[in-house]
């Protein structure tokens, strides 16, 4: 079950809101966990069993590490065991080369336990935090189960530290107004996914269908720009939906994206893209390793490698690793030229071009395909444009322009500036109508297949 499916929006969501709000305060955690297990169970009981066992395993390992707090060294083995087991499981499910192993275990083909990438990060972070004495092991299995499996955050996050999650959980405020805000954010995320990302994915697919040797340069650029925008709207749409759902249940999750695409420097992109996940990699990989060395070039190498891991986590392919490494290298190089005034004027274009070019590796099935695609982008096929260019531009120009505008903070800034004006009150008053119309339009788009399943990455 995905957030952008009919059965979730019109079946699971209203029902779970009803059950949750009808339950007594003290049972709400258990109710939410039960609902989350049903949500995860839609992948099949086999996948659910894996998920539950993994949660129980991490709960147990957390306690073993906790009991060795005084003699820290003896806690190292359970920590390493826990981390290795979590990462091994992630590889088993996500690495394409391990398909045979998955078959032997008897896992259904193409089915992943929901949110495997996210809850692996959560689990590893939890174990490290106990080991480093930041938190104590959780004694309440229900609360820990919620941390790992809670359906509003299991698909795309946000990835939170355990103590932050517990704080959010304990400060829950359930009210009709909170649900209203939550539904507004949810529908915004749904629109990002269904209206923007899915249509952009069709543009990207249209370009990908052309043989790489026959691809005109403009088409190749159009396809990759569509891919970058699609990736942004997919991932940020899903996180928005998760944050909105959390809000419906009274929880205030931090946002994950802050208009990262059209920024004047790569490091701004890095600090605004998938913020909670990027922070996880920095917190648990880059920072501890960098602290071990005072040599600058080693620190830079660690920084670049961490971005490489982040990219690899997206795709579990070499292409994702290269995308991440390129981003890391780009940020390091950019710092060298940070004082160049020219960057202030051209930064937005340079950054977006860099992101577009590096995303060729993220998008490609393999390295040779990515290199061929790059060749087409620089005019290697000796074709600047063809009839397909006209067709694609004519068909997608509106969605491209609207998507570019929506991925900037121009609209938000306009709203902020107009706070004292009438237009703001009018827009505010129209919110319920806008939410319902958007919800129904998105429903129309997913009504035939029942769900919006197109995605540039599988997390």
């Amino acid at each position, binding site marked *: *079950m995905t957030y952008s*499916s*009919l*059965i979730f*929006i*019109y*079946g699971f*969501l*209203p*029902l779970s809101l*009803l059950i949750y709000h009808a339950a007594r305060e003290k049972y709400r955690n258990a109710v939410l966990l039960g609902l989350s297990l049903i949500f995860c169970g*839609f992948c*099949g*009981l*086999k*996948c659910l069993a894996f998920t539950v066992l993994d949660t129980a395993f991490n709960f147990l390992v957390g306690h073993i590490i906790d009991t060795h707090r005084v003699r820290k060294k003896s806690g190292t083995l359970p920590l390493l065991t826990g981390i290795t087991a979590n990462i091994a499981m992630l590889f088993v499910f996500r690495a394409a080369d391990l398909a045979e192993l998955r078959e032997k275990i008897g896992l*259904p083909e193409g*089915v992943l336990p929901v949110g495997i990438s996210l809850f692996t990060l959560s689990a590893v972070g939890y174990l490290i935090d106990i080991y480093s004495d930041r938190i104590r092991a959780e004694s309440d299995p229900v609360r820990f189960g919620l941390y790992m499996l809670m359906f509003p955050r299991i698909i795309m996050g946000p990835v939170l530290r355990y103590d932050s999650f517990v704080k959010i959980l304990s400060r829950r405020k359930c009210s*009709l*107004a*909170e*649900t*209203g*805000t*939550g*539904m*507004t954010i949810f*529908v915004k995320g749904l629109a990002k996914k269904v*209206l923007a990302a899915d*249509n952009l994915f*069709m*543009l990207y697919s*249209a*370009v990908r*269908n*052309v*043989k790489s040797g026959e691809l005109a340069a403009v088409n190749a650029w159009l396809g990759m720009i569509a891919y970058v925008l699609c990736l942004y709207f997919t991932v940020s749409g899903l996180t928005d939906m998760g944050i909105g759902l959390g809000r419906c249940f009274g929880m205030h999750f931090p946002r994950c994206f802050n208009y990262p695409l059209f920024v004047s420097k790569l490091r701004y992109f890095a600090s605004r893209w998938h913020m909670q996940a990027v922070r996880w990699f920095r917190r648990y990989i880059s920072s501890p390793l960098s602290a071990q060395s005072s040599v600058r070039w080693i620190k830079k190498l660690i920084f670049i490698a961490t971005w490489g891991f982040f990219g690899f986590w997206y795709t579990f392919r070499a292409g994702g690793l290269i995308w991440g490494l390129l981003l890391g290298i780009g940020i390091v190089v950019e710092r060298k030229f940070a004082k160049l005034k020219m960057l202030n004027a051209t930064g937005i274009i340079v950054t977006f071009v860099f992101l577009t070019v590096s995303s060729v590796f993220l998008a490609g099935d393999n390295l040779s395909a990515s290199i061929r695609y790059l060749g087409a982008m620089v005019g290697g096929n000796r074709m600047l444009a063809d009839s*397909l260019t006209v*067709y694609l531009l004519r*068909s*997608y120009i*509106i*969605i491209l322009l609207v998507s570019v505008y929506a991925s900037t903070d121009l609209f938000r800034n306009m709203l902020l500036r107009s706070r004292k004006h009438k237009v703001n009150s009018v827009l*505010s*008053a129209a*919110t*319920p109508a806008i*939410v*319902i119309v958007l*919800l*129904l*339009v998105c*429903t*129309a*788009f997913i*009504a*035939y*297949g*029942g*769900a919006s399943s197109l995605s540039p990455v599988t997390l």
Partner: protein
Amino acid sequence: MTRLIKKITAVAAIAVTGTLGLLTVTVPKKTYSENENRMLQGIPQLSWSALADGSYFSGLSSCFTDHFAFRHFFVSSDAKLASGMCERVVNGVYIGNTRLIDAKVSERGKSQLNAERIKRFAGNYSGAVYLAAVPTSSGVYSSMLPAYLSYNTEKQQIDRFYAEFDRSIRKIDAYSILKMQTDDYIFLRSDTKWTGYGAYCVYKTVIQKLGFLPSPYSKYTVRHVSDDYCGNLYNRTQYMKSNKDMLDIYEYSDGAEAESCTCYYNNGDSKSAQLYDLSALDSGDKYDIYTCGTCPFMRIRTSLNNDRKLLVITDDMGRNFVPFLIQHYSEIGVVCPKKMTGKLEEYVNADDYEQTLILIGADSLGDEDMLSPLEEEEE
């Protein structure tokens, strides 16, 4: 947003999602959708294996989707919105100015398996085998599709399929015949299938290959029995602005007649039928007026006494094609492998027929199950 606005938003959103969800669950379920011309997914059967591998839940999700309240309204709105907003491809169908075209031609499976089955069938068969792979509207009107959707055209698929056979199987180039007639009404505008006239154009060549002179077009009386047929491409898009189609039946008043048509079903039952069933005009699928190919095996005995027998192995493309053959054979056996649950020999002995015509649509060439009944029972 003020608190009041937030509360109104919450109430409105919950009311809309709750009401539509409730209507979906409580309104009595239909088993068949007339708008989409297909059986709808029912509530899946509960079993441990289905629960374990998740197929129960995906079935449940499909059931919810199929029975979603106001589904027809939402699906048809999708076509309107999508064609206005971006590319004119909705649910895998290209919305052209004059017709709908299947845009998923390039994604079809490989035809090698079916070619092998036909070769094995021909090897064990005592008579002559004729093969006609018929393009769908996507093949004949592929130039209307944007370039990226027509890179692996039906022409190429048919050529690759034909290249699998040697001269012992006589191939008929239906593609070129139809391609020359694109200005005529040879394909339905809202469907992948051909019209009666399209079938007649190919019949003229096929029947000559089979050793007869074709009946002249002027001898037929064409009856337009319906002018509001919505085909399988409409079913996928429910695009209201698409042109509705005419269904024709061809009658040859001075010629031979079908004296008896008998349908044989998978459970061993047989039933008398007619070549055209006009009562289907009142049903969900008006195309069922063409009865040939609606049952696994149909035996047609004509008023001719020339003792010539033809076996036709076909899919939907044969439904309005077979009636033209009545003028030449005393008996025609129509095999529809897609409808068969057993092997061909359980229904008919192919060697009783001196000629076999395999007439299948290009969209069936890559269908792995399509010709599986032709394979002999493993001992």
